[in-house]
């Protein structure tokens, strides 16, 4: 298949929820090295609250992303509330009227997320934040659309790009967020937000690939 039914959002969203739940400890540890150690807890709380709210209901991907964004924004606070809240709400907005999620539409959704994010934060690629995961993921999708790649392959490529982007934060010096005041001492460790963003994007892609293949 070359597209996903927007209505079949549930499994994709739960894939994201479970990935965060499984990585709660790991994200906390990463944040603990140069931040305050609460990233895993924060993300887990927000995603688990969304899971509870969803219950055993079905949801479209657009509605689910909106609800997830709202829960994050309203319930977890911190930086991650507004940041991931904005990302998911923008993705939802960009897909609201669609029945089918195609590769070009998904690229648009991700582009909207990045733009929305840029509206509330000053960080850009290279500043050791989740932007370093999100930006290459979006670039990869843009390239896949231009070269007419298959949706599944495009998602695999996006996962690889996100992973590479996340890993690239290891050698960076943080410019924003709590760890930014570390200067050189922040080098050598992954960024927590870049790591969670990678976890989420990969889980989202996996959920989508599962549907595209079945």
């Amino acid at each position, binding site marked *: 298949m070359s597209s996903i039914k927007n209505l079949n959002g549930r499994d994709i969203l739960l894939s994201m929820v479970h990935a965060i739940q499984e990585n709660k400890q790991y994200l*906390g540890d990463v944040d*603990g*090295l*140069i931040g*305050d*150690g*609460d990233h895993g*807890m*924060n993300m887990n*709380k927000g995603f688990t609250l969304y899971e509870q709210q969803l219950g055993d209901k079905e949801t479209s991907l657009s509605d689910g992303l909106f609800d997830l964004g709202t829960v994050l*924004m*309203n*319930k*977890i*606070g*911190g*930086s*991650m*509330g*507004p*940041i991931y809240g904005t990302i998911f709400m923008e993705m939802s907005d960009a897909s609201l009227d669609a029945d089918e999620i195609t590769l070009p539409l998904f690229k648009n959704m991700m582009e909207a997320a990045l733009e929305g994010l840029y509206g*509330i*934060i000053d960080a850009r690629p290279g500043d050791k934040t989740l932007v370093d995961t999100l930006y290459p993921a979006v670039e990869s999708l843009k390239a896949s659309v231009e070269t007419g790649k298959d949706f599944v392959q495009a998602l695999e490529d996006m996962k690889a790009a996100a992973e590479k982007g996340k890993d690239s934060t290891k050698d960076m010096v943080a410019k*924003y*967020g*709590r*760890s*930014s*005041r*570390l200067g050189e*001492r922040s080098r050598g460790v992954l960024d927590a937000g870049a790591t969670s963003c990678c976890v989420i994007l990969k889980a989202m892609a996996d959920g989508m690939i599962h549907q595209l293949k079945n």
Partner: protein
Amino acid sequence: MQRILNNPDNIVDEMLEGFVNCHGDIVKRVITNDDNPRGVVAAKDAPIAGKVGIVTGGGSGHKPAFVGYVGKNMCDAAAVGEIFSSPTATAFLDAFRAANGGKGVACLYGNYSGDNMNVKMAIKMAKREGIEVKTVVANDDVCSAPKDQREKRRGVAGEIFMWKCGAAKAAKGGNLDEVIAAAQKAIDNTRSVGIGLTPCTLPAVGHPNFEIKEGTMEVGIGHHGEPGVEVCPIENAANMAKRMVDLVVNDYPFTSGDEVAVLVSGLGATPVMELYVLFNEIAKILDCRGIKVYRSYVGNYFTSLEMMGATLSVMKLDDELKELLDLEAYSMGFKQL
């Protein structure tokens, strides 16, 4: 972890329940909103019609900050976040509502990215409801950025001076711009520095958040264990005091003849006795430098869970700030006749 807890995920809500129950003579809980079931802590008779509302908020784990500074002639409402994490935008909005007496709201908070984003969003929402909100963003922590990037500096214990002076201005009938100006002046005149001696453990995490090796101290550490500018062998109180005074005094700079307010706060687990020993050394050095201490405060005013260590905040005074600082106040964390 040798801590007093039930489910660590509920610690903030349970703390709040206990806090409001204990201090019913000073505060009340205001819950108006399904999106923020925790509500906010407001002064007992907030909002006061015709008075500028004073709002603050921030992550939990800093007791008495933030809810301990809600009270008479202090903040009117505080938004409460998870431990070390900004409150939500909805929580700040609820605090604006609880504090708004029709003359606008001064939101006086610390410079952290999460708080900045959530306050910004809350202000947008408040605007739609016709609540005018202006902000002062505390950035008193000298070691958190170079002087030419003061806008990047964190807010730490100096926020207490900002709240005290801003709130006093409002209590004395100042309008929103006057209140903002007073609070801004207070924080612009304030410099702080912290020395960390032990790390702290978030209850839900269960192991220390960062490391400070036995026998070392971290100069310039932040209120969430954000690393400082130097890790060095632990020094005696006199030398710690000298370092702290040097960093703070040279940055502003404070000079001979200045009158100042001094606040020495523990980070949580350092015995208060030792804070007085440190203050004693600080007072001697300031005296040598010709800087006159007009008022001083020593205690656990702004903590970081069970970290050991202390912060020093110094505020340059003028006649207005003196008058504002002198006004009586009554909150859990700051009581003054």
